[in-house]
């Protein structure tokens, strides 16, 4: 079940995503979509946290970048685990800004992170739709898949 990196996603995901696809088989036919959905769920929570962290940093006298660092580490980790390379790279830059107590840098990084995450999400949805169509077209070769990727 080896596939080339889908050109739709090229750039925003890396070979780790291929590794996940390789872990999917008849005994675990929805593995990739399950993991990706967990990732989306976690990421949205982390983004909410990061937005709050940025607000705290901008508003308060005492700037606590520690929480931001923790959230970023989590986001970096899960992004790299699914191959979300660009999101991960923005997190790295974001973390560097937070370590330098660079407020403006953090805000810029947050904006970029939101963009990259949104882009990734759209691309992965496209990828899943293409996959679904391929499965339907292949007909008998694949077992029944649930509707929702």
């Amino acid at each position: 079940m080896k596939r080339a990196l889908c050109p739709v996603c090229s750039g925003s995901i890396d070979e780790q995503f291929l590794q996940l696809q390789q872990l999917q088989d008849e005994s675990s036919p929805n593995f990739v979509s399950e993991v990706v959905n967990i990732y989306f769920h976690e990421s949205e929570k982390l983004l909410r946290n990061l937005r709050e962290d940025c607000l705290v940093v901008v508003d308060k006298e005492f700037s606590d970048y520690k929480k931001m660092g923790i959230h970023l580490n989590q986001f970096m980790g899960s992004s790299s685990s699914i191959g979300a390379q660009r999101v991960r790279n923005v997190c790295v830059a974001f973390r560097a800004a937070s370590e330098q107590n660079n407020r403006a840098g953090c805000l810029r990084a947050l904006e970029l992170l939101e963009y990259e995450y949104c882009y990734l999400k759209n691309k992965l949805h496209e990828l899943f739709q293409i996959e679904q169509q391929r499965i339907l077209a292949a007909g008998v070769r694949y077992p029944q898949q649930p509707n929702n990727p």
Partner: protein
Amino acid sequence: MAKNGVFSRLRRLDRAEGVDDFSTCNDSHEVHVLAVDDSLVDRKVIERLLKITSCKVTAVDSGRRALQFLGLDEEEKSVGFDGLKVDLIITDYCMPGMTGYELLKKIKGSSTFREIPVVIMSSENILTRIDRCLEEGAEDFIVKPVKLSDVKRLKSCMFGGNRIQKQDKGLNKRKLQDNSGVPLSPTLDDDDDVSSSPSPPSISSPSLPRSFSSLPSSPSSPTPPDSPTRLLKTSDEEE
């Protein structure tokens, strides 16, 4: 405590076997791994990687729960988990509460469980961190994202019939490779290759194994195990 079972073939475990499934397993040779990671995404991935390499997996989300599972937690006794011997513990380094390093220390400090090999995973390749873990008795240190080749190598090194006890620290440290472009195993039906890195020619060039280990290096490892220096390489193995 380690099992020297025979794992000659990958098995696709039944999908119904859940993360917290403690039903007894009839196959006495199956390696039981306790995976510890606070990230649900990573737990899912490591669990799948381990199942695909025919390991039984229990995945928990914190060091505390891991200790409870083992029965090491002072405050709570784990009940009803006898007979589920743990053969390997694989834990994330960065976790809230108890870090993987602290968990490692607790395990190595326990007379009952100190023999269980512990592997640390981390998304950061910080050499002092790696050193610290190896010195504390970790068998291996894997840089995330964890790949199938990492798990296969771990399993065959530890349970392939040549169980090596914890080696002298400082030996067999390997160079670190950047996370880019590690090629994937061509199939999931590989037998017990010691290393499932799929393209030996490219491995023998600048790209290097992705873990630090007190275990002997696999045959396809390009670097001599006692290489004194560690370099960060950024080469790609394959386009």
